[in-house]
């Protein structure tokens, strides 16, 4: 019975001229909450950043507080986990190393000479890559959910992961036919090309006549993905005993990521996230359906296409760099929507930080906590799956 509570709403006299309300919500036995109700939350950018002007609703928390909290947690986590691993480095020392790199000042002579090397060349690139990939996948997932009007969509709904996997598998088949390429160059490249080709195929199959409607897109994605899966299966069959390499790649990993990977991932994720943030209000309006959005001045077809292409590019680069990592792009936007509400202007930035933190945690578990490296895709699905079941069940019970 979540939302149906007894409420008394009255206008606040002490803030004349603006439409502030005080809501006394007695719908929960636990506590009586008095919250500030700001009617313009929806359009209020400044409201996101000024805590006192934000509406608080039942399970919803303050967006500004939440986003800044996530940003702080991400920064702290990066510092903390950099110190974790075979060689223990304290957070203070990590900060010292980072500061010396940024300011250019030399570290004190007593400082362990191996630490800067471990932090800067070994751990930080991997940590940053996993954070950017996590953030990118979660943002892409949020966009796919909003555009397809389906809270269970994820970055792989359009078959982009299958395309990347097919591309990566192609490298293997090429080596079998005697065309050998250095794996660390060709796998990401072919995976990215495979993902792009899939995107083109899905768009070509989904007719632009109906402004790329959700059903057409999802169906096109399913069709292309199933063709590609058959292709991957065939390549695995041809690969015979070498199949282990491709399976390992499919399950995802951040082992041995370098600064090149960081820059590569960021070069698509950063502009992608910025473009998506620019269109977040249009994304909100599109929840009213294509025709209504059009009548409200949103160029639905064009906006959908731009957002889908950027979300797909982010997904493609993430998958190419790290393999197929499931659940981050599904769970993070889904959970954050429950917490923050559906406003994409709040949700999308929150997704970026949330996804980054989640994948960073998962990667740290396999890198520094487990006795041996586990493919991260397996880990996220093993932990994320049951957790998602729990949330899904609980939500159903609470809703009606």
């Amino acid at each position: 019975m979540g939302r149906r509570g007894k409420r008394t709403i009255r206008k606040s006299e002490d803030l004349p001229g603006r439409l502030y309300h005080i809501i006394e919500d007695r719908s929960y036995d636990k506590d009586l909450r008095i919250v500030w109700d700001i009617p313009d939350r929806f359009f209020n950018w400044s409201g996101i950043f000024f805590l006192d002007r934000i509406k608080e609703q039942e399970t919803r928390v303050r967006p500004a507080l939440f986003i800044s909290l996530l940003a702080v947690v991400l920064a702290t986590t990066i510092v903390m986990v950099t110190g974790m691993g075979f060689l223990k480095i304290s957070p203070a020392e990590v900060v010292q190393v980072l500061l010396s790199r940024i300011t250019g000042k030399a570290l004190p002579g007593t400082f362990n000479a191996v630490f800067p090397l471990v932090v800067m060349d070994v751990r930080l690139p991997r940590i940053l890559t996993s954070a950017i990939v996590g953030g990118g996948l979660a943002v892409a997932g949020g966009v796919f959910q909003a555009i397809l009007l389906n809270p269970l969509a994820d970055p792989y709904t359009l078959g982009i992961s299958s395309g990347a996997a097919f591309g990566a598998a192609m490298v293997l088949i090429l080596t079998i036919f005697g065309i050998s390429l250095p794996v660390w160059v060709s796998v990401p490249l072919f995976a990215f090309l495979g993902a792009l080709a899939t995107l083109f195929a899905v768009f070509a199959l989904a007719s632009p006549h109906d402004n790329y409607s959700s059903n057409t897109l999802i169906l096109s994605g399913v069709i292309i993905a199933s063709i590609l899966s058959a292709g991957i299966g065939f390549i695995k069959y041809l690969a015979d005993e070498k199949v282990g390499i491709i399976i390992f790649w499919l399950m995802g990993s951040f082992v041995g990521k370098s600064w090149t990977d960081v820059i590569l991932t960021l070069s698509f994720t950063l502009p992608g996230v910025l473009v998506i943030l620019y269109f977040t209000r249009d994304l909100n309006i599109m929840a009213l359906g294509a025709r209504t959005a059009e009548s409200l001045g949103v160029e639905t077809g064009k906006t959908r296409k731009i957002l889908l292409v950027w979300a797909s590019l982010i997904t493609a680069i993430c998958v190419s760099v790290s393999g197929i990592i499931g659940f981050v792009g599904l769970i993070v936007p889904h959970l954050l929507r429950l917490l923050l509400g559906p406003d994409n202007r709040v949700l999308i930035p929150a997704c970026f930080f949330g996804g980054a933190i989640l994948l960073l945690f998962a990667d740290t578990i396999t890198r520094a906590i487990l006795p041996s490296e586990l493919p991260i895709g397996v880990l996220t699905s093993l932990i994320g799956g049951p957790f998602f079941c729990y949330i899904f069940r609980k939500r159903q019970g609470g809703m009606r």
Partner: protein
Amino acid sequence: MMAASSQSVYTIRDGCFGYTNTPVLDDINLSISRGKFYGLIGPNGSGKTTLLDMLATTTRPDRGEVLFKNRPVASYRRQELARLIALVPQDFTLGFDYTVFDVVLMGRHPHIPRFSNPSAKDLDLVENALTLMDITSLRDRAVTDLSGGEKQRVVVARALAQDTEVLILDEATSNLDIRHTIEIMRVIYGRVVKTAVTVVAAIHDLNLAAAFCDELVVLDKGRIVAGGPVQEILTNELIRQVFSVEGHVYLHSHTQTPRVEYELNKNDTG
């Protein structure tokens, strides 16, 4: 009864539209004047929604042209049109659990610059629309939790908040109880009379159309078969020809508007 101004809002010349060869609309010639309430009537599948989409400019005709205020629709920017024309679609989507207030505020989208806050005027218009549609008490409820009729009123409120010169309504009262149906029609009629808003509404209930509209446009099989003042259009012959039922049209003694009574003989198997 109607505003004296006869400025042209829409002119459609030889408008045709079809999904892969089957014409949905054929040879449409229509002129809509400012400050009038137009009722669009016709049986299911006669092309009402497509014609309304054409007026709302969400659909462009395959052939022919649509002029809005004597300028081709294509010469307007999308956002410009959104400030002038509002649409209440028949099958509306309310995708995520936005609050009622949020959805009604979305009607102000074309008026609020990107990254700006709504002005006092925007908020006033939203409050006003909430009050008119009798949904002020639902303001913080999630739209996904509402009943069909409540959702319908939210969608109409959103269009009212858009504050446009033209209002296109596709069966806007089809999900509503009789009280809210009449209330909504009165509110919309009030806009026509007071602020010279032009309304084109597809209405199934002929009595409702006759009571509130100035003029009727009759669609049948994708063609306009009649158009003009309600009293001239609504006749026994038209009801027989277009709707294939026997009806009796008379002038209501009190309101002096036409009423229709249908032959409802449950034993007549034809």
